[in-house]
């Protein structure tokens, strides 16, 4: 039996071909998913750098603290969560907690969207995809509001090294969420155009991987930046 014949015998049973109608791979693993996981692995280094930088400089909140409006009068040694005239500090933990629940909820709707398209339930897929994008948008709106509040309280990007590290970390995460929303809307449009159905569910899975990664990064940021004791 020639090599070409042997290949033709093997390829039709190939998982990648069977699921997506595309070419099989020599490893039997989808190249697209493999690439996404390699990308997510590299993203660990990016966010690792940003979180490490924040941890390194979080004690420097009081540099130039006189520029932080709520702390002008007492000049006490305060952190971003406590202190100031009203004792509330800069961070608003209850507000950020609600944002965290929203982003966590969007991971659930994302995985439900994937389940729906795998089963060929296209109406549910559209609903869950748009819900995920909407929840992500609410999270971003909350972050914009939060940033505005911080600036009004006197903590800007260039106020001190703490501000630079904080805004860079949370801002990069916000950009990732925004890109995720664009990817979700793109999948929705592709589906509406008839270019995305249950045979191409892997495309949705890959977008979902990115979305869930953004969620796990927020799990780290929320704990390390907002909840760890000062």
């Amino acid at each position, binding site marked *: 039996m020639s090599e070409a014949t042997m290949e033709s015998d093997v390829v039709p049973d190939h998982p990648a071909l069977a699921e997506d109608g595309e070419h099989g791979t020599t490893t*039997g693993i989808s190249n697209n998913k493999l690439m996404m996981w390699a990308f997510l692995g590299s993203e*660990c280094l990016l*966010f690792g*750098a940003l979180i490490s930088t924040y941890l390194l400089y979080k004690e420097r909140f009081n540099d130039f603290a006189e520029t932080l409006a709520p702390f002008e009068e007492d000049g006490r040694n305060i952190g971003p969560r406590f202190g100031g005239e009203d004792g509330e500090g800069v961070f608003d933990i209850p507000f950020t907690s609600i944002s965290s629940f929203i982003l966590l909820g969007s991971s659930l709707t994302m995985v439900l969207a994937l389940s729906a398209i795998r089963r060929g339930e296209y109406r549910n897929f559209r609903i869950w995809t748009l819900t995920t994008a909407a929840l992500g948008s609410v999270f971003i709106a909350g972050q914009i509001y939060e940033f505005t509040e911080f600036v009004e309280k006197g903590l800007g990007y260039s106020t001190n090294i703490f501000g630079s590290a904080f805004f860079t970390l949370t801002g990069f995460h916000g950009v990732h969420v925004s890109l995720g929303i664009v990817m979700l809307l793109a999948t929705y449009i592709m589906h509406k155009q008839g270019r995305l159905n249950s045979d191409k569910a892997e495309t949705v899975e890959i977008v979902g991987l990115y979305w869930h990664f953004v969620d796990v990064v927020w799990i780290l940021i929320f704990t390390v930046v907002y909840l760890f004791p000062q």
Partner: protein
Amino acid sequence: MTNTHTPVETAADAHDDHHPSDLFYLKIAGILALFTALEVATYFIEDDVPEWFLFFSLTALMIIKFVMVAAYFMHLKYDTPWFRYLFIAGLVLAMGVYAIFFFSFDLFGLG
């Protein structure tokens, strides 16, 4: 000569037969929400408990949540182990590099 799979192909194929139900995902989300609520609760009680306890419990909850999302929502538990290796490689590399980063800053009195 049909149905000829290599071991790698078989491993890659395995996950496709094991998609959890929507109810299962709801349960996972419920547990994650509960853990998040516990995390947030520490903010309101932190004056009454030791700092080391808060640090330990928050770190534990964070790791559990991280693993749950990666394992169930990102399907690492069901997918081929190669994806797990890639992701863990990134994580371990990041932790190693930034542990050295912290050590260097501490060593040279920077930061």
